[in-house]
């Protein structure tokens, strides 16, 4: 049982490039989340999903897109990367009935130069 896995661990992008952050969970959780964490700013919700085919915006969705074609996978797409997207990105999942008890992945550290 690997829990929540994220790839890559680190990535450097140039301004204007695009990339996809991968997230997979093997706990059969319906709910999945993408957060970004910046120093002094705390965790900010980017997008979340309550099940395959259903996604919704969080607090800071601009510049990002998501899809959820399976229960296990929840990729985050960055289009036209900007320096403001330099951050640590965490994917998380939870059971439907325990949305506050989230299991987090190890994170992806992204730098946009």
């Amino acid at each position, binding site marked *: 049982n690997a829990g929540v896995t994220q790839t890559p661990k680190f990535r450097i992008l140039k301004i204007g490039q695009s990339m996809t952050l991968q997230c997979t969970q093997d706990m059969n959780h319906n709910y999945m989340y993408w957060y970004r964490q910046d120093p002094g700013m705390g*965790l900010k919700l980017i997008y979340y999903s309550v099940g395959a085919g259903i996604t919704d915006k*969080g607090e800071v969705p601009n510049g990002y897109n998501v899809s959820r074609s399976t229960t296990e996978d929840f990729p985050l797409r960055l289009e036209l990367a900007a320096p403001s997207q330099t951050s640590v990105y965490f994917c998380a999942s939870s059971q439907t009935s325990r*949305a506050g*008890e989230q299991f987090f992945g190890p*994170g992806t550290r992204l730098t946009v130069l």
Partner: protein
Amino acid sequence: EDQVTQSPEALRLQEGESSSLNCSYTVSGLRGLFWYRQDPGKGPEFLFTLYSAGEEKEKERLKATLTKKESFLHITAPKPEDSATYLCAVQEGGAGNNRKLIWGLGTSLAVNP
């Protein structure tokens, strides 16, 4: 505005020196309050859920308590391995918000041997 405020921002203790971390919140209705631990370079790890005033949860040297306005995380006789950032999050009541958490900025705890 709904808020979660944690204090102190940073705390340095000697091994065995007990103390408490505070999480105060202002939400229109509380569905749940959650404590997480985050080690450097890793994703947050769920510790406790508290649902109603007066509730207490314990795990090893940690004890979480809840009142109508705040929660405390008491650390008894801490060890160096308790060093981490402790995050508090609140889930608002109401059908529209029941999947999202409001996160505090965390308390960075260092326990010296």
